[in-house]
């Protein structure tokens, strides 16, 4: 992705200013400054997001779409303005294509359940990659079981890149959908989704992209990649918990039957016959997470002000530094060596299990994650039980990476 290398990473002053926007980064953990390197699990939130949510409850709180009174009007406008912000962020064609959910996992479940139940027939094939998070595996297993469709798996090569040509062998007229992560949460692999989508479309298959890790790490453009479905979580994009987005191309969404039933998603209800509302409301049953959605808008505007290309460049610099530093340690092995990698580095150290590594790093204030990262099939494929994973955000620094490396000394002290 050559245009990105032209973008300069942050200056020290810029980075300091960014860090100051995030209250949690001032925390002391175990008497040390917090080095938060668990951003792939969830990101910290800028004050603008925290304050927007509180301000909503203090001065704008009401239910949406249902009332004519002042607060209800304000809340509805704020909620729908946030939808427009998301539309622009994704460069979707229409607000009708933006469905709010409770998270990326629900977004994928919605597609598997609604689209899948209607369009999958016995013997139809669903292609997943070996890199997928459980949230992009289990919903497909559930709908495969229900419909008689079959899962096929796109394997990886020794670098943890998708196997070249692997898709050629898998795609056939039986392939109805390909569900693929944009950036792999276990390895940081950036998948070539634009090419994959073009190839799948040529073969007549739809494509769902799991953007949980990508949304905070790289600019997104639905027109450019031409995805049918794109799923993401606000909480991994500096936004609140309990908010997700599902983008669906309008012509596809129009054909989908309702997922959950309830208030707001109907046009008329009678016990004999219920008719459903227009897009996207047909897919938003019940009171949504209004305050969360309103605050999420601030998160999007925050990363847009900085620029996702600059965030990408910053994280790339950190990631390259972390990979180099880790690989320089003779007893450390980084997992995968993908051609394009974003913000995530997993590793193993000979003397200690990832859980013990994470506990010891925690003792010096360095927060990393250990375990299978909801990537059990990938772990099995790699013949390991888990890894220790550092994942970066807009606010991380080289010093924090150095503290991680320093912490490995302590691991060795205890375990060697």
């Amino acid at each position, binding site marked *: 992705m050559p245009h990105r290398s032209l973008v300069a990473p942050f200056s020290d002053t810029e980075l300091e200013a960014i860090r100051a926007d995030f209250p949690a980064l001032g925390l002391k953990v175990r008497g040390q400054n917090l080095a938060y390197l668990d951003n792939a699990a969830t990101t910290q939130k800028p004050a603008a997001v925290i304050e927007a949510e509180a301000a909503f409850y203090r001065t704008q709180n009401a239910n949406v779409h249902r009332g004519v009174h002042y607060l209800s009007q304000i809340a509805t406008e704020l909620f729908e303005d946030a939808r427009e912000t998301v539309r622009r962020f994704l460069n979707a064609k229409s607000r009708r294509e933006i469905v709010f959910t409770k998270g990326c996992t629900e977004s994928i479940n919605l597609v598997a359940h609604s689209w899948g139940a209607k369009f999958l027939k016995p013997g139809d094939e669903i292609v997943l990659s070996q890199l997928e998070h459980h949230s992009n595996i289990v919903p497909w297993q559930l709908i495969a079981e229900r419909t008689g469709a079959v899962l096929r798996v796109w394997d990886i090569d020794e670098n943890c890149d998708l196997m070249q040509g692997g898709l050629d062998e898998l795609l056939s007229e039986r392939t109805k959908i390909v569900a693929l992560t944009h950036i792999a949460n276990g390895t940081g692999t950036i998948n070539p989704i634009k090419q994959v989508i073009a190839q799948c479309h040529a073969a007549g298959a739809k494509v769902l992209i799991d953007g949980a890790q990508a949304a905070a790490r790289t600019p997104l453009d639905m027109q450019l990649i031409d995805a049918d479905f794109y799923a993401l979580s606000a909480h991994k994009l500096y936004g609140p918990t309990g908010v997700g987005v599902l983008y669906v191309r309008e012509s596809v969404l129009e054909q989908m039957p309702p997922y959950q039933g309830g208030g707001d998603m109907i046009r*008329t209800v009678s016990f004999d016959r219920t008719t459903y509302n227009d897009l996207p409301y047909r897919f938003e049953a019940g009171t949504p997470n209004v305050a969360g959605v309103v605050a999420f808008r601030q998160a999007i505007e925050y990363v847009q002000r900085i620029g996702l290309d600059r965030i990408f460049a910053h994280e790339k610099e950190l990631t390259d530094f972390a990979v180099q530093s880790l690989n320089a340690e003779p007893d450390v092995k980084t997992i995968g060596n993908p051609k394009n990698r974003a913000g995530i580095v997993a590793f193993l150290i000979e003397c200690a299990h990832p859980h013990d590594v994470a506990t010891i790093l925690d003792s010096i204030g360095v927060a990393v994650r250990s375990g299978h990262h909801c990537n059990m099939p990938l772990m099995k494929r790699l013949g390991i039980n888990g890894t220790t994973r550092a994942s970066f955000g807009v606010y991380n620094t080289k010093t924090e990476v150095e503290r991680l490396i320093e912490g490995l000394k302590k691991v060795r002290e205890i375990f060697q």
Partner: protein
Amino acid sequence: MTFEGELSDLYQQVILDHSKHPRNAGSLDSANRRAVGHNPLCGDQIVLMLEVKDGVIADVKFQSSGCAISVASASLMSEAIKGKTVQEAELMFRKFHEMLTGACDTSSLGKLSALSGTREFPMRVKCATLAWHTLEAALNNPNQTVTTESDA
């Protein structure tokens, strides 16, 4: 403007008059275009019947259960479109829609401009546009059901 002023702008005399005494209310046996419109927010409903002959809206009737704004809007619309060509009616809708969603010149809208006060009440804009969305459906997809949700 004070909110008190905005309120009396919303409920102008002509609106109240048309809501209490809707013109062209009723059923139309000669109708060759028909559509039903719903406002899912409140359950308001309108059934619109048109007789279109040689591209002209020769006659129009409607049955509506709704608030003052939606009934008055249907009534005012029925008066405005009767005898007009389909193209003229569609142009009228575009102008009407512009009036409610942005600042625009209302001079060409005649009596319809009585509904411009709705602009200050975003949650009521749907009430004013329901009849027009239904008209659009009747002209383009006869025997359709539409909602106003896309105005949200």
